[in-house]
């Protein structure tokens, strides 16, 4: 067989059924092998779409997503998707064709130094230098992508290696198991938890990535200890929203209850979170009196931004179980005053949906959508105001159901991520919640929905603005709305219809129920275009450079 056949066969042997990509000159042998091979290739309409579809695929099933592109512009278009995967620790394997080995370094047609480009946006990357190492390199790419802290891995394959004659063999690429957390730091953590009167469980995306068992164990730990919990954007869905002592999302657009209580905590039990600036506000004012117990799989995160009194490196599921056992044996302080406080803060700062007027209130729209979607639905958002409204007002039963570009904040993420998720969760209802700015960033992927007849639903919240930037211009730039007014948007429903996608526009509150029902119950893909007020802002907001308790709630 050829190197190209070996690529396709190795992917198949590793259990890959679907890959996302776009052909071109330097990857043509692999596309030829795909034509005769056993893998479903999904043609996206831009390599960025393919990379983000691989991210969506991976996040919705918590396993590796694969994307494929040619050299030069194909590879450069992948970069944003890889950076997205890097910042959100998503296991993705990207395969790129490269010009033939003798041509590398000659400025050949469609030659860029992809290995060099990849360095800052991948967990690791390979340039395959000899045909004999092709299979082992692919296997190592999968092992690296899914082991430890997951991330994107790129394999750049020169064209001469794709056409070389090779022999393949059985392939395997299981994740390396996480090491067990040592007993001594667990004992220290237990001691700190026993002393704490106002502890907070601070839950990030790492828990979901540690697997469904880690999610279950974390819920059990929360239940056993009764410690009030907060989640990051990527931690949403990890703790049940129905939990009494769950305070919701923390940070810049977090709930008042979460932001107020985390500031008063005396102990943070951090699980798979990393003190991101969108969580902490001004770092040295974040939870100023709290000690820190930090679970992570990446040793670089322990004490990177906030000193950890105890670092717990390794297998989260097992670590939580053992920590829970220690606390069951010898429980700590009575937390009931702190728990009562949690209930009171939640009650006092409930979301309100009774906005007066005829226009559609986006938080209410999303709350209603959340109530009408089946529990195992996947929502892939874009980036901006609608993304924060999704995080605030929709409820998710698992972290794999909420796909949001957290670290990179990639506008244009949602539509391709939804396409990828529809492939890894074919039976789930998949909804892309987007804004009029983000939607246009990867609108070409409507072509992918059309090509494969995908039932992806699209909820487009349209304020004719780049709303989040507009909000900041209003609040922090004296109302100078530089390049954020999009009153010349296309007719979105007409645009969708050009791709064979049904849809409608709603503008009034009394159209909400029917509009959501049309979206959720459509057989195929559907676009619900919702016009909202341009002036609507996301509240509360921790302004830049402020402490988390200093939340703004109006523009006054």
């Amino acid at each position, binding site marked *: 067989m050829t190197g190209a056949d070996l690529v396709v066969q190795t992917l198949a042997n590793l259990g890959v059924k679907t890959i996302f990509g776009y052909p071109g000159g330097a990857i043509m042998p692999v596309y030829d092998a795909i034509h005769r091979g056993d893998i479903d290739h999904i043609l996206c309409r831009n390599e960025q779409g393919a990379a983000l579809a691989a991210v969506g695929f991976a996040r919705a099933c918590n396993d590796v997503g694969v994307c494929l592109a040619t050299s030069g512009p194909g590879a450069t278009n992948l970069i944003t998707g890889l950076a997205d995967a890097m910042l959100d620790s998503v296991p993705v394997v990207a395969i790129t064709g490269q010009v033939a080995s003798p041509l590398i370094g000659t400025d050949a047609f469609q030659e860029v130094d992809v290995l060099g480009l990849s360095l*800052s946006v991948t967990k690791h990357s390979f340039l395959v230098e000899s045909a004999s190492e092709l299979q082992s390199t692919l296997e190592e790419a999968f092992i690296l992508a899914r082991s430890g802290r997951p991330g994107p891995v790129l394999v750049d394959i020169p064209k001469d290696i794709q056409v070389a004659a090779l022999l393949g063999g059985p392939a395997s690429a299981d994740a390396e198991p996480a090491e067990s957390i040592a007993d001594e730091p667990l004992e220290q953590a237990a001691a700190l938890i026993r002393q704490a009167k106002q502890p907070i469980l601070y839950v990030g995306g790492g828990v979901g990535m540690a697997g469904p068992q880690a999610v279950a164990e974390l819920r059990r730990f929360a239940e056993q200890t009764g410690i009030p919990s907060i989640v990051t954007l990527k931690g949403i869905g990890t703790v049940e929203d129905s939990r009494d002592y769950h305070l919701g999302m923390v940070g810049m657009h977090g709930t008042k209850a979460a932001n107020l209580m985390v500031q008063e905590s005396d102990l943070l039990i951090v699980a798979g979170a990393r003190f991101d600036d969108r969580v902490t506000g001004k770092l040295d004012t974040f939870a100023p009196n709290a000690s820190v117990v930090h679970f992570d799989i990446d040793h670089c995160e322990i004490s990177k931004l906030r000193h950890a009194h105890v670092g717990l490196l390794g297998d989260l599921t097992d670590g939580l179980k053992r920590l829970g056992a220690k606390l069951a044996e010898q429980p700590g302080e009575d937390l009931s005053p702190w728990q009562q406080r949690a209930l009171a803060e939640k009650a006092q700062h409930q979301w309100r949906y009774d906005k007066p007027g005829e226009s559609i209130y986006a938080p209410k729209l999303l709350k209603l959508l959340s109530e009408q979607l089946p529990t195992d639905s996947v929502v892939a958002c874009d980036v901006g105001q609608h993304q924060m409204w999704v995080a605030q007002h929709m409820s998710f039963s698992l972290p794999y159901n909420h796909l949001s570009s957290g670290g990179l904040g990639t506008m244009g993420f949602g539509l391709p991520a939804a396409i990828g998720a529809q492939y890894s969760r074919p039976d789930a209802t998949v909804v892309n919640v987007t804004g009029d700015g983000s939607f246009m960033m990867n609108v070409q992927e409507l072509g992918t929905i059309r090509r494969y007849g995908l039932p992806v639903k699209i909820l487009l919240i349209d304020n004719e603005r780049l709303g989040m930037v507009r909000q900041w211009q209003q609040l922090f730039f004296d109302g100078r709305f530089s390049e954020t007014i999009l009153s010349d948007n296309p007719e979105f429903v007409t645009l969708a219809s050009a791709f064979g996608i049904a849809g409608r526009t709603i503008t009034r509150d009394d159209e909400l129920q029917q509009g959501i029902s049309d979206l959720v119950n459509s057989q195929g893909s559907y676009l619900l275009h919702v016009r909202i007020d341009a002036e609507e802002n996301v509240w509360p907001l921790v302004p830049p450079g402020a402490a988390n308790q200093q939340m703004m709630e109006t523009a006054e």
Partner: protein
Amino acid sequence: MTTSAQSTASQAGQQHTISIEAQDRPATVERLLRVIRHRGYRLCRMAVESSQEDERIALSVTVASDKSVVLLQNQLSKLVDVSSVEITSAETNPLRISA
């Protein structure tokens, strides 16, 4: 191969010398230098020795920063090709992290 570059720019923060052992793969040195720069450390001196027989590469780098050198040690040791990162400067107790 041995290269050495002495910086003439003004010193910022404390200097530390770090010994790094790694697999000699395409871009290994670039990866190390990228992490040093991006994480906020200035390169003052560097020596590289690579041996073709065992595909290993050894680097000695002197860096300056106001940040703790342990943070850099952690980030370097996370790189896939890196097998060990040792802080060898006199100011700090030698501390070895195996990757």
